[in-house]
């Protein structure tokens, strides 16, 4: 596709439920990132994929958070037993992962998660 696509755009769930957020990166981009942005705050790094591998999971806030990437393309971020503090906008980005372009990331519009 032309850009990074995320779905759903909005998700409302009840505390304790599991949610899955999906990201379709730009075709051919080997690097994929998940970030989280709370209201009025900057972005918080969650996890990085290079291909299907996740060499950096350092930003995942707890073991309730997990992510996978298949076929070097689509990625899914799963949050188990959601809590109210998980409410935020979850942003996905991709880049070519090559040289200086690694810092040039293309972001999707995000998934706004609300945990009631």
């Amino acid at each position: 596709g032309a850009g990074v696509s995320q779905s759903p755009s909005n998700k409302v769930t009840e505390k304790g439920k599991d949610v899955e957020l999906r990201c379709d990166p730009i075709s051919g981009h080997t690097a994929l990132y998940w970030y989280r942005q709370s209201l009025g705050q900057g972005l918080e790094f969650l996890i990085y994929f290079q291909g299907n591998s996740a060499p950096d999971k350092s930003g995942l806030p707890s073991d309730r958070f997990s992510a996978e990437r298949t076929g070097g393309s689509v990625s899914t971020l799963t949050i188990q037993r959601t809590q109210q503090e998980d409410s935020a906008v979850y942003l996905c980005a991709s880049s070519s992962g090559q040289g200086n372009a690694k810092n040039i990331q293309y972001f999707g519009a995000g998934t706004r998660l609300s945990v009631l």
Partner: protein
Amino acid sequence: LAKTTQPISMDSYEGQEVNITCSHNNIATNDYITWYQQFPSQGPRFIIQGYKTKVTNEVASLFIPADRKSSTLSLPRVSLSDTAVYYCLVGDPSGNTGKLIFGQGTTLQVKP
């Protein structure tokens, strides 16, 4: 990753040139300086990246002095649509991850 410091907010008027300065005293030799723009309810958008001296593209210019401890993003003749949050980041793109560390950014308000 080097920490950056930038003003929390700035005001400007349409047609003016806006300069946003970012301090990064602990920048490392391999670090690049990258600026992003974010509109409400959207993901950040890459604006410009540089290593030293001056870089210019169709959107902005980036000025980096010789010591690289600061950088200035210059937006020529801003319009109302340039109202957004601007983030300055430094990082080594040759590093293992290339993950970006976002600070609070500078909220630019352009007035008519």
